[in-house]
């Protein structure tokens, strides 16, 4: 049964699409995690759903609607360059409203409900050759963008003040990051669906960061974990007729748990935080003499 399936063209297409998406998601995840932008990714994907729902109602290809929705939110978030709590609450407010519109649009849509389900939970086995081609083109764009901006992105993610003082254009990079995130999210939605985008964009990178302190190695590890999760998930779903997204989410989460355990049990050589006494902040002030 499995060997028969593995000989099918649509299964090959699914594996290839999964690989393409996994590589981009694993790569961008490192920057998402470094910027603390997980919630933004979630918002971008949910509003991609709203865009897709709008496209369905309008009778357009939902992938185009999804891309537009994600990109719009990505550009807005990038331009705002919000930080901390303000960003959190602003994203929450926009996300909720966007989903509300998505629900309305979906209720207006008279077509097949499976379209909507596929958007929410993914439909990797339904990927066509032309979709695979489009996925690959977008993936190449995202990876080229990441490669070109790797160092300034890293700099502005970990140390924005100094990066700015060295002439790194923070706002332009913020927009670039969110545009790349939006493109990646739109890719991931087609494999794991709106609700599970984080399983490919966040989980592998979060696991990788637990395992290494080196940015380049973290990037490769994150890609590897995303690849194993996606391909493993597709393989398992051929064997057992459960949703592919479930398997992908399970494998990537397992990798995350393992990474945490490895991190927690590794010998503490040069790793344990050696906190100096907080009281050494200032020399004592002998004003009372």
């Amino acid at each position: 049964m499995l060997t028969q399936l593995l000989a099918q063209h649509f299964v090959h297409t699914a594996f290839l699409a999964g690989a393409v998406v996994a590589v981009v998601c694993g790569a961008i995840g490192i920057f998402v995690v470094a910027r603390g932008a997980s919630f933004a990714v979630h918002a971008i994907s949910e509003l991609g759903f709203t865009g897709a729902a709008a496209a369905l109602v309008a009778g357009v290809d939902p992938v185009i609607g999804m891309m537009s929705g994600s990109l719009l939110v990505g550009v807005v978030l990038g331009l705002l360059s919000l930080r901390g709590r303000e960003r959190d609450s602003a994203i929450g407010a926009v996300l909720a409203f966007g989903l509300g519109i998505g629900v309305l649009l979906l209720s207006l849509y008279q077509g097949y409900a499976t379209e909507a389900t596929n958007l929410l939970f993914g439909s990797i086995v339904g990927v066509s050759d032309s979709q695979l081609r489009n996925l690959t083109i977008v993936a190449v764009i995202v990876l080229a963008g990441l490669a070109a901006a790797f160092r300034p992105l890293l700099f502005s993610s970990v140390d924005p003040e100094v990066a700015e003082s060295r002439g790194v254009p923070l706002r332009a990079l913020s927009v670039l990051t969110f545009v790349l995130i939006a493109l990646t999210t739109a890719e991931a939605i087609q494999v794991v669906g709106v609700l599970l985008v984080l399983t490919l964009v966040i989980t592998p990178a979060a696991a990788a960061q637990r395992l290494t302190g080196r940015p380049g190695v973290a990037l490769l590890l994150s890609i590897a974990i995303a690849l194993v999760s996606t391909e493993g998930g597709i393989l398992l779903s051929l064997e057992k007729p459960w949703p592919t997204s479930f398997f992908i989410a399970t494998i990537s989460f397992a990798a995350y748990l393992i990474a945490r355990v490895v991190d927690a049990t590794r010998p503490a050589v040069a790793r344990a935080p050696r906190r100096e006494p907080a009281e050494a902040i200032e020399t004592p002030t002998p004003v009372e003499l």
Partner: protein
Amino acid sequence: MTSEIVSVKDLTLRFGERTLWQNMNFELGAGEFLAVLGPNGTGKTSLLRILLGILAPTSGRVAVRGRPPRCCAALGYIPQQRIFDRDTSLRARDFVRLGVDGHRWGVSVLSRKQRERIDGVLAEVGASSFADAAMGRLSGGEQQRLRVAQALVSDPAVLLADEPLLSLDLSYQRIITELLDSRRRRFGTPILFVTHDINPILPVVDRVLYLAPGRWAIGTADEVLTSEVLSSLYETEVDVLRVRGRIVVVGTPEDHGSHHVHAHGDMSV
């Protein structure tokens, strides 16, 4: 051709109605060590940001080697401390490397010379032993030494340091101070050093720029840190005491928003 490296001319900074300072003028020569003192909210960090070319002053101009900042000369910047997240995927040496090529686009590998330079500054700040540890796992003091290394690695024309001794214990305060001191002596790099507490750096300071709300004064520590000068800056009676080689200022208006613990609101400069 004068020997000044940094020049500040008629610099005025206002935020809305509030004037932080007006017509500030000073120059820094090669190797000069300037301490910038004053309570919070008097624009110490803003002055650094203007020199870095990030913040535009209300009026006046600044120049580094006769050119606008950020145009030509590398500036070394040690910002106020922000502790790195525990999860930051970056080794200490990667962090220092950002000072070499973090602003450049594209992908490249370091030359042997650049790698040696990075190893060299890591050794200079006493960070060789944890050069391969992840930033997020290091203590505040260790992270701070790496910030100094990152600023030095670009061979800056000027060093701008914002409270670089915060969270360092006394021995590392001394090490960092000596490091900056030897840098300016050997390479003639002028240093602007923002601090709340002048005492740890008193032996190496050439001049002091004192910022009080709406006013400023510049001169040697002996000229500026006197009861007369500070009383006139604050328009209230302020006493400057010298206790066992340390300078203590008593009676400045309480600086609001300061998180520093000072008995009875007095401030040690």
